[in-house]
């Protein structure tokens, strides 16, 4: 009954938003009864989310929604949420078309709907408890997607993900209780005055969910074991669910800004070093995700666009890499690469490396604009070096596709990756990018183009000159189950020490 009273239409906003948030869950229920409907329902959810993302970007909706009174649920469908919603919708669509022939009686599509619902809520939720609930929905549906294959490694990886995810969310809940004890409210604004311990507990959980620094170390093994579609969802959608609350906290609590920058920088560096030393493709992509998520955190205001560009490209890379037989990088270089796989692969990785006219270029430029300023110090230079490193990481995947080779054999082109790469190009013409492009034009395009070309060349050169001796260098294995828990504990302790005031 309260549901209907909430939905009694005031079409100007709240009813629409609530209907949109409920749609995936109702669709999942329907798809459980009538599996044949699952595909059109997912398309419907994707279309509604695209519409909401556009409406949020253009400010057509009231940006804040308070349900059930001042202590109740608070939702924000605002410009911060917009690019993340867009990313989640596009990646879901790509995963759907990628497995279009998939048996609809299998629960994959149903779980995809649940995951979509969780991600949408997590992106727009802006009070501590709604964020908690949404994170747990995302966690449970990701776990179920991970264990779909029912093989022992997948079960173990899924279990690891859920156990660690839930443990850190318990810490989050404890942090929320401390905030409530001090502020008598679960609103994010209260965090500014709340104690450092509460903030540290909240952040350590969100760092794990957003795949950052040592809290994100669960990712490489997860991506190596998971099917490509699930990996694409994790790096394109699930990560948004963790990033959105972090970006909201960064916007609400000014004092936490420098800390987030340092964590972002550390994460970017850690991911980069491990990606340069990695020998398997899926794990290289995962390490690069950890590195790129760190970059997102450097300038939270530009973070949405950066996450969008990265998520689209990374999901495309996962979808393409599954269609190629090689798993290790050595075999990767030896295999023939036909254009139908080579083109999306090159475009997506060039986008992450920051090559125009792809969306990644614009995101990188926005990032350096956001970093410029008198207090930035050495940060712009550090970001420049990290960008060279990123280009070097992806240069490890690059080779010229050949026309003759393997044209007949091998798997057909990946429709999902095509969709995502098309989005990387076409989104430049939409409201998400047009404004940034016009400011960039105003500041002088030539400099930006030259910088980008220099970065790419430097990265490529670095990769060429990299010592090929045996395995490059060996790094410690930090990804055991106990290492992950210990890493979380270390992170939590460090945050408490840093934030105690």
């Amino acid at each position: 009954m309260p549901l209907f009273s909430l939905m009694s239409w005031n079409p100007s906003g709240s009813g629409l938003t609530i209907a949109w948030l409920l749609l995936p869950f109702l669709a999942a229920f329907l798809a459980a009864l009538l599996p044949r409907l699952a595909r059109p329902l997912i398309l419907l959810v994707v279309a509604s989310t695209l519409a909401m993302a556009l409406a949020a970007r253009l400010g057509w909706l009231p940006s804040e929604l308070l349900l059930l009174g001042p202590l109740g649920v608070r939702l924000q469908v605002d410009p911060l949420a917009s690019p993340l919603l867009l990313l989640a919708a596009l990646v879901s669509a790509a995963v759907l078309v990628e497995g279009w022939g998939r048996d609809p009686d299998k629960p994959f599509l149903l779980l995809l709907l649940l995951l979509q619902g969780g991600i949408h809520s997590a992106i727009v939720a802006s009070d501590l408890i709604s964020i908690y609930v949404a994170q747990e929905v995302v966690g449970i549906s990701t776990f179920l997607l991970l264990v779909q294959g029912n093989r022992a490694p997948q079960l173990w990886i899924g279990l690891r993900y859920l156990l660690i995810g839930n443990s850190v969310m318990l810490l989050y809940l404890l942090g929320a209780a401390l905030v409530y004890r001090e502020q008598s409210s679960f609103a994010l604004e209260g965090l500014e005055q709340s104690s450092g311990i509460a903030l540290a507990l909240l952040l350590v959980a969100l760092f794990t969910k957003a795949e950052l620094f040592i809290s994100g170390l669960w990712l490489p093994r997860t991506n190596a074991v998971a099917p490509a579609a699930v990996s694409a969802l994790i790096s394109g959608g699930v990560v948004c669910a963790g990033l959105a609350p972090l970006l909201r906290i960064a916007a609400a609590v000014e004092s936490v800004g420098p800390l987030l920058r340092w964590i972002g920088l550390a994460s970017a560096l850690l991911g980069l070093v491990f990606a340069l030393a990695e020998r398997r493709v899926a794990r290289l992509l995962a390490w690069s995700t950890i590195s790129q998520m760190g970059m997102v955190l450097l300038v939270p205001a530009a973070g949405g666009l950066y996450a969008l560009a990265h998520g689209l490209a990374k999901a495309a890379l996962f979808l393409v890499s599954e269609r190629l037989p090689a798993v290790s990088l050595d075999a990767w270089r030896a295999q023939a690469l036909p254009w139908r796989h080579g083109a999306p692969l090159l475009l997506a990785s060039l986008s992450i490396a920051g090559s125009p006219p792809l969306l990644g270029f614009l995101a990188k430029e926005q990032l350096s604009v956001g970093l410029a300023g008198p207090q930035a110090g050495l940060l712009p230079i550090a970001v420049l070096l990290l960008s060279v490193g990123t280009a070097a990481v992806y240069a490890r995947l690059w080779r010229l596709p050949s026309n003759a080779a393997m044209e007949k054999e091998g798997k057909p082109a990946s429709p999902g990756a095509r969709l995502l790469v098309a989005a990387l190009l076409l989104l430049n013409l939409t409201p998400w990018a047009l404004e940034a492009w016009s400011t960039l034009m105003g500041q002088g395009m030539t400099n930006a183009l030259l910088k980008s070309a220099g970065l790419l060349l430097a990265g490529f050169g670095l990769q060429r000159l990299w010592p090929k001796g045996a395995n490059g260098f060996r790094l410690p294995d930090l990804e055991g189950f106990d290492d992950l828990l210990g890493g979380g504990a270390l992170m939590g302790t460090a945050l408490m020490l840093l934030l105690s005031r």
Partner: protein
Amino acid sequence: MCCLVSKKSIVGFLNIRLVCEFMAILDAIDGFRVMEGLLLLTVFTGFVGLLLRRNLFLKVMGMDVMGTGVISFFVLVAARSGFRTPILDGNAVVLDGRDWADPIPQAVILTAVVIGLSIQALLLVAITRLASVDPSLDGVQLDQLGRD
């Protein structure tokens, strides 16, 4: 018989005295702070169990202890303003100066209880399946599964 009863009553009396004295001490040093500390200790103990136990089942139990601590902490936060159950009787006045418990944390933690329960059920199902790989459920052994 009488002896036994008197002994029992004396012991009982002593116990009551002890409890009373303990409560007095608690009153002096703010019982809420003590309870809070104990509950935080519970959460910490659960985390240590999660970290140090090799057996997967015990790890999940450790997580459960953590959850228990967190839930009780919410209940404690709710009880700060009073112990009376916040259920209205008809049109009773809410702000009548009586010591109502805060309903918000209680309502919120109900969701977390349900979520915790369902996650634990999922974890235990996964553990049952993994038991066919390694019946001893040794976390270190199972960790080899994700490696290549």
